[in-house]
Structures are given as C-alpha cells and as structure tokens.
C-alpha cells in the first residue's frame, strides 16, 4: 500500500486524501448525527408509533360514554343522529372520563351549532334535512323543538309556516290571506318527514283558479276573466304569483 502511494504523483495523493476526508465526514455524519430511525424503515415505523402513542388523548370514544350514560344513548340509538358520535356535539371528553365530577363536557345550545350541518347548502344530499336559519323559527333555540338525541320534531309541524315562514308571511298580507295552504296544495304526510323527496302538489290546471276567477264563477268581489280567451295554454301561476299582495 505504501509503495502504491509512493508511486502516485503527489497531486494525486492529495486528491485521494481529500476524497478520503470527505468519505470519513460522510461516515461520521451518517453514523453519529443522522438518527437511527432515519436509516432503518422498521425503526422508523416503530418510532413513529411511539411518537403517536405518546401524544395526549383528547377523545374518549363513544364506548366510554355508554359506560355511565344510559338514557341518552338509548334515545339516540333509534334516532337520525344514531351514527353521530357523542363527542361530535359535546366535544373531546377524555378529561371528563378521567374526572367525571369536576370536568363536564360542553353541550352546544345556540342555533349556529346545528346550522353547521343543517343550514341549507345545495351541495348536501337530497333529502338531508336543511333549513334556512333566518326563516326557520328565527331566534328560537333548535333544542326547544328538537331533541338532539332524536332530532325528529316531537310533533309533526302543525302548519306549513314552520318551514315556509316566508311564504306564510307574504300570503298573510295578500288577497289570499284567508285561504289555507291545503286549498291549493296537497301535502302528503311524508312531506313533513322527508320534505325534499316527497313534494306537495301545485295546481296543474287552469280550471282550478277558474273556480273563483272565471267570468262564469258565482263568487262575488273577486277579479274575474274569460278563461276561454285569457292566458290560453298557460297555467295561471306561471304569470300570477298567488302568495303576494296583488297576486301579479
């Protein structure tokens, strides 16, 4: 070996030395600075598991809730919120599990919390219960009508204005104020449960309005037209909006 270096010209020896020094530097960095888990995939996996396991636990999981609470999970089991975890609304509850008396989980009571899921948004699936918070019983907390553990309203909405408040208010100031919704619309019972899949009817024949508004109608004090010539092939509400003041 010594002879080999002696035979090499001095500049080549210098270059070899530089490369040897670099090789030693790389070796030292790899051996002593780079942590072992960066070099060995098995170790890397183990260390990431360790790191994850060391993190503080925030969520207790639904199983922990049912160990102490009987009533609410029982109600929730058959309701529409059955697939929703308790902690989705009540927040992370591990601290409550550790210390049930001093730490209490939160329970959202304001309207805006329910609106996260139930505010009308056209990208939500058809049939998913959605409301416009400004129209749907404004200022009234959701939980005054809906039990969040079984959110179906306890009684089916008595009148249409529970959901269609805006139309109801407009109609109240129109000539049709005294006509109830069901005179013109037939709402199947299921509409109250699945409002977007089961839709009420609208008058689909001109003769329906003609019962009051045809020239031949016996009703007094109502504007009438000759249905034979007026509007031809159109259904009346295609031009006259029946819920507003003048109806036009």
């Amino acid at each position: 070996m010594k002879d080999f270096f002696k035979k090499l010209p001095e500049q080549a020896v210098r270059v070899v030395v530089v490369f040897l020094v670099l090789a030693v530097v790389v070796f030292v960095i790899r051996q002593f600075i780079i942590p072992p888990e960066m070099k060995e995939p098995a170790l890397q996996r183990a260390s990431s598991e360790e790191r994850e396991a060391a993190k503080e636990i925030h969520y207790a999981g639904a199983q922990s809730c049912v160990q102490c609470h009987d009533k609410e999970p029982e109600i929730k089991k058959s309701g529409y919120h059955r697939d929703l975890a308790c902690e989705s609304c009540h927040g992370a509850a591990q601290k409550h599990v550790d210390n049930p008396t001093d730490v209490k989980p939160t329970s959202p009571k304001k309207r805006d919390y329910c609106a996260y899921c139930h505010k009308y948004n056209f990208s939500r699936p058809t049939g998913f219960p959605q409301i416009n918070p400004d129209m749907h019983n404004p200022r009234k907390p959701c939980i005054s009508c809906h039990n969040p553990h079984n959110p179906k309203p306890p009684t089916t909405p008595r009148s249409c204005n529970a959901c269609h408040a805006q139309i109801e208010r407009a109609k109240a100031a129109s000539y049709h104020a005294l006509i109830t919704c069901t005179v013109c619309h037939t709402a199947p019972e299921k509409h109250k449960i699945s409002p977007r899949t089961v839709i009420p009817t609208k008058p689909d024949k001109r003769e329906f309005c003609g019962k009051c508004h045809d020239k031949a109608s016996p009703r007094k004090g109502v504007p009438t037209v000759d249905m034979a010539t007026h509007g031809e092939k159109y259904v009346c509400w295609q031009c006259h909006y029946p819920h507003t003041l003048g109806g036009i």
Partner: protein
Amino acid sequence: METAQNFMELSKQVVGFIYPNEIDIQWSILIVVYPYITGLVAGAFILASLVKVFNVKELQPTYRLAMLTALAFMLIAPLPLQLHLGRPERSYEMFMTPNLTSAMAMFGFVYLWYLMLVLLLEIYFEYRRDMIVWSSESTGLKKWVLKILSLFSTDISEKAVAFDKKTVKIITIIGIPSAFLLHGYVGFIFGSIKANPWWSSVMMPVVFLFSAIVSGIAMVMLLYMIIKPLLGGKIDMKCLDKVASFLFYAVIVDFSIEVLDFIHRLYESEESIKILSQLVTTKLFISLVVLQILMGMLLPLAVMAVIKVFKLQEEVRKLLYFVCGLLIQLGIFSTRWNVVIGGQLFSKSFRGLTTYKMELMGMEGFLVALALLILPFVILSILIKLLPPWKKEELAGS
C-alpha cells in the same frame, strides 16, 4: 385569501372541463429554470470534451471557458429544486440516507458524481500547474485561495504535468457518459411519468440531451465572444467558425429528433392527441411554434446555413453568430418551458386546459427565477478572475 382569489381568477380562464386540482399548476418557473441550467452544464462539457477526447484542435481556446461555464452553472443547478421544495438545508440528507428506488433521489448521486468526480477533478488537474505558478506570483488573499484550490501541491515537474494531462483525458472520457447521464436523467424524470401523455415518451432523455448540447455550445460561444474581447484578447475566427459549425450540426440533430418525436406522436394518434393539438395551437402557440421552432431553431439554422454557403465577412459572421446564439438560448428556454409548463396545462380528463399565471415576487416567482439565471454568470466572473481561461501571452498573441 390570496390563494383563493388567485384560484378564482384562474378558474375563469379554464377552457373545457378540468379537475379542480389541475387548475393551479404545481411545477412553476423554477422547474423550468432547472433543466435549462443542467442542460447548459452538459452542453458546455460536451464542447470541452471535443478538445480533449476528439482532438478538435481549433476549439482549444474555448476549452477552459467551457469547463468553467459548466462548473458555474453546475453549482446553481440544484438551487431551483431546493427553493421549490423548501428546506434546502435538509438536502444533504439525501446522500446520507439514500433511497435507491427513487429516480428523483438518484439525481442527487448523479449530480454529486458529475460535480466531484468529473468537473472539479478535471478543472483541478487542468489548472493545477497554473495555480501553483499564479499563487507564487500573487500576494495576499488570492495567493492563499489558489494555494488551497491547488491542495497545496508544489510539483510542477514535467512528469507531474504529463500525469495531469493524462488524467484530464481519462476524466473527460468518463465525463462524456456522465454528462449524458446528467441531462438524460432530467429527460428521464419527465419521460417516465406514465400518466402524462405530453411527457411520457422514451424519446424524452434523447430530446433533452441534444437540446442540452445545443444550448451549452451556444452559451459557450456567446460567452467566448463577450469575455475574450473584454479581457483584451481577440476572437479567434477559426475557433468561432468551428464552434458555430458544431452548433449547426447539433441543431440539425436536435431538430430531427424533435420532428421524429412529433411525427411519432401524430402517427400513434393516442386518445390524448386531440387535447395536445389543442394545447399546441392555443396555449403554447407562441412559446412552442413561434419561439421554440421558428425563432429558436429554424431561423438560426437558416442563418448558419447562409453563413456556410456564402463567404461572409468576419464582422458580419460575428454579428450573425451572436444573434444565432441568443436566439438558440431563447428557443431552448422555451423548450424547457413547453415541456414543464405545457405538461401541466391540460386536464388528465383530456377535456380541458388551464392557464399558468406566473408570480412576480415570492419564492416561485419571476424575480427568483431571474436571480437564479443571473447567479451562474456572477460565479463565472469570479471563477474567471481566479482561474483565467486564457494566459496573458495567449491574449496578447491572438
């Protein structure tokens, strides 16, 4: 907020149907600069190898300049990638924990091999004798820098210098496949992306390689024409004609390969052909048809053909060579742009196109890209100060 605004603005310029994650493109101008710079390195080195391996004596005056140019651009080559990825201080880990199955990680090793075992070694052996002489002549900081660069070597005997010459030749022979590997790799990384019909082609490494040779030779030619007169020398017309003639052949080969690739795509006429032809005729029309093909390739080819056919005067030749060099640089930069940006402008659904809006400021912006393109010239000027490519007697004699 700014991102959302930018997104909304871009979404208005979308043509046809495009998936939401394709609207804003991910590989920006920095990724355009990267293959452009690496291409210059490989090209400049190939020019240098013509002198040492293929004994083209006329090109001797450009040899050292070509080596220094390759080194200056090589030092900046990984910077655009590091700035694009972020956390450049972690890049050394790539060498410490090698991932042998990742093509991108292998670039680190190709780069290291080329920088350490080809460029630096060759420049060391080429300049060693001169560095010893210059350090003995100079004083102060320069003396010590040269001493360190020569690794404190002192032997300038004939035997030692002969050894240097022999080593340089061997390194250049190793360097040619290495230079091919360096830029072929850049083409490989694009060519191997199966999901992208604009990139996925076995021709890609070859196309990249030849465009690299074209851009490198043109860059050294430009630098030779600028720097030599600046240092007080005279342009060697024999050398310049020879460089230009190599450039001419390189452009012809590059053009033929690109045309071959184009015809091949047309004949194959895969399902992507419609969207690609829409891409070429709309969004890439200026950068591909006008800048890359007409101005960057056909025009310089025509001009150089005219120079070859008609015996023009020296001054006219110089001017035309210079213009050709500039046009070729513009054309090759457009080539990189068309590959990198073009490949991201169409939807994988093949039904729509998006637009690239370049930032001005910011890490991925125009100013950073410009700085990265200027930086190699700053490094080159320092290298030339320290290691002059032409000796005083050469400058005076020519």
